[in-house]
């Protein structure tokens, strides 16, 4: 019986490790795509060739072509940069500002705390994508505005997690001990509270990259994205919708790439969470 238990455990961990490696590999692939698109994709994404329009996937055009004869694979590879930049930057901005608000809110006295938290409550009443729609509708479509919109929408989530962490760590024995030694606020925050409350924020930020990309692709699907020569993944997907009956691949593959990327990011985030808190490894 014991032997059986052992074997199952090993099988489980083997399975999750290989899944993790696969996810990491895929993320790496996308990152490489965004840096060296020309080396990965053979066809130019800008070359329109009416004679090649709406070709099904083949050896020459791995994922088929769109209505202008552009290679879908090239479009995805070249579009990855934009999606990635939006995802990462909006997490950095939203997470950074949210983290700061959470830190101040959790560390400072009750009045500041409730003031900040009420503001976060108010921001939260406007669901992320709505906030993003509003901001990009006002500011007009551009990559920067898209990033700003997604950042604002994700801000309260980070602020709340950070605040919870800080409230928790603030009461840890070593913070009290440091206070009794005579260290100042800055020292306690910088050396004790911040380093120990960051890990859950990093988990959230990892998963947040996925969520930001989902939100951003949703926005460009609605036409609030960027108008560039090379469309990003969301816009590509919305183009595909109109050709669903004749060329399923235009809509299918960009969506597949978005999903795979977000899944990979989530697996990575979950693994990191389990690493931090082995108790939740079972779940």
């Amino acid at each position, binding site marked *: 019986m014991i032997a059986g238990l052992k074997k199952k455990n090993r099988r489980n961990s083997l399975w999750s490790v290989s899944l993790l490696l696969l996810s990491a590999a895929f993320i790496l692939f996308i990152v490489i795509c965004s840096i060296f698109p020309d080396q990965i994709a053979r066809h130019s994404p800008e070359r329109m060739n009416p004679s090649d329009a709406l070709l099904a996937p083949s050896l020459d055009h791995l994922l088929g072509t769109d209505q202008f004869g552009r290679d879908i694979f090239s479009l995805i590879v070249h579009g990855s940069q934009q999606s990635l930049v939006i995802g990462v930057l909006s997490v950095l901005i939203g997470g950074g500002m949210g983290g700061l608000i959470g830190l101040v809110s959790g560390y400072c006295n009750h009045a500041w705390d409730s003031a900040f938290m009420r503001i976060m409550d108010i921001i939260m009443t406007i669901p992320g994508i709505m906030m993003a729609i509003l901001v990009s509708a006002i500011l007009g479509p551009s990559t920067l505005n898209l990033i700003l919109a997604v950042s604002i929408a994700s801000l309260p989530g980070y602020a709340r997690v950070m605040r919870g962490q800080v409230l928790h760590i603030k009461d840890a024995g070593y913070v009290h001990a440091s206070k009794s030694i005579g260290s100042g606020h800055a020292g306690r925050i910088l050396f004790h509270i911040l380093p120990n409350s960051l890990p859950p924020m990093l988990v959230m930020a990892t998963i947040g990259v996925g969520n930001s990309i989902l939100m951003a692709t*949703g926005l460009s699907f609605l036409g609030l994205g960027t108008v560039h020569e090379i469309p990003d993944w969301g816009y590509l997907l919305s183009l595909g919708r109109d050709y669903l009956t004749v060329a399923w691949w235009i809509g299918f593959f960009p969506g597949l790439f978005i999903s795979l990327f977000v899944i990979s990011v989530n697996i990575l985030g979950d693994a990191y969470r389990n690493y931090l808190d082995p108790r939740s490894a079972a779940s």
Partner: protein
Amino acid sequence: MLYILSRLGMAIGVIWGSITLVFFIVNVLPGDVATLLAGDDVPTETETIHQLREELGLDRPLLVQYMDYIAGLFQGDLGTSYANSEPVLDRLLDNLGPTLALTLSSMFVAVILGLILGILSAVYQNKLLDGIIRVLSLIGVSTPNFWIGILLIWIFSVQLHLLPSIGNGSFEQLILPSIGLGITGAGVITRLIRNSILEASNEPFIRSLRGKGIGQRAILLKHILRHALIPAVTMLGMIFGEMLAGSVVTETVFSRQGLGRLIVDAIDQKDIPIIQGSILFTAVFYVCINMLVDISYRFIDPRIRLNEK
């Protein structure tokens, strides 16, 4: 009773806050409505734009505009649409029904699917079924719902000709959009239920129940589930908000009428009052649902109720 009243007061406060927030986003962000409306070909700061500004009342001080807007709200006046000069409220009410129908039916899909899969996943923890469900829920939360919508249309309408892909009105037309929108929520709920069941089954009182000879099934159905559902209920309000927002995209995919379509069209026409109004609508819904969740929470969990006595 006192609690409900104070909760209501809080809700009104938050709604006022979000009205203010949206107002200031619209009016303070550097984007200029008049310039936006005039279009790209009109150069900034020309006579046309000044005229437009005057017409829209945008030349008045910000605070006056704000007071005006709030005063209007009390009379049910959410402004007039730039595009066709209709009152915003009428347009919103016209489109509210289909969106609510879609949101509620997606909620239904999400809760039922999430509950069943979550329980199964927890009961068969670390078995094959659990693995499959976990992968499915991961896909559910990671896949853009507009893409799921497109796939559903492609499979069920284009390939199998089973269900209509677009439009609204009939029940059949509601099926695909609800599934498309519900899957994301189902993924979230599945993970939530699974985690909270596993957490609840580690509670020390479960050990003492077993020690008293209570059967596995009774422990699961009566004690663990009751315990596990409490945290899940608090998430319902959040998920509702996500669904409401997700309907914007889903309605576009399935060419359904509704708030979402209204917003998307408004984006094209730069019809800010409509966008502003729709967002206020969703905010109000969000706050109300969360208030209901909070109040019902107190009936589900005696600890909260009695702690305040």
